């Protein structure tokens, strides 16, 4: 079981901010492929990965990052704080 969380327009496009999923994905990229195959909402959210950032267990990382031991993966657009 892994928790996947979404923020900003990814959350709106997918229709939820949080889901718990069973996955065999070994990397963030594999997880994205699995989620995109699930339905058109996920597919739309992940259509352009250049517009998507990812954090594994609250640490910014890239799509090659392993998630075998991860508890939480977060997807969101580039940050706009400050």
């Amino acid at each position: 079981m892994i928790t996947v969380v979404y923020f900003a327009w990814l959350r709106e496009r997918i229709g939820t901010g949080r889901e718990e999923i069973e996955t065999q994905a070994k990397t963030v990229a594999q997880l994205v492929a699995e989620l995109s195959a699930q339905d058109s909402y996920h597919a739309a959210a992940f259509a352009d990965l250049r517009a998507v950032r990812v954090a594994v267990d609250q640490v910014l990382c890239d799509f090659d990052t392993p998630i075998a031991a991860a508890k939480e993966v977060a997807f969101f657009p580039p940050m706009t704080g400050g």
Partner: protein
Amino acid sequence: MICVQSAPFDLGDIANRFAVAQAGAGAIVTFSGVVRGDGGLLALEIEHYPAMTLPAITDMVDGARARFGLLDAWVIHRYGRLTVGEMIMMVATSAPHRKDAFAGAEYLMDYLKSRAPFWKKEHHRDGAAWVAAKDSDEALLARWG
């Protein structure tokens, strides 16, 4: 001090509290960000990632302190709905000399802008839209190497 809060804060109060805590500092810099009413903006909605926000800002503050020899650095960042003219966030830095206090504040601002997990949505009369990250902000961040 790092605060992530929905409540407003008082710039003057924070600046004075910061200043009295800075024995040995010759230079104190504050930056505050204010919601601008450009293009008929009615309100700004700020979303954040609670589990990540505080650890991410803590890393930035530690990085700024180490890199510029800051004596101290405070960050306050709000989330939720903010109207035009309200303060979104502030940083305060102190150092023996002005160059480091300025650089520390700019470094923190560049990181907060592009690497802290906040997202802004602009509400106008005719709808709402997420603010896109700017290339110019990535360029400012890149100067720190």
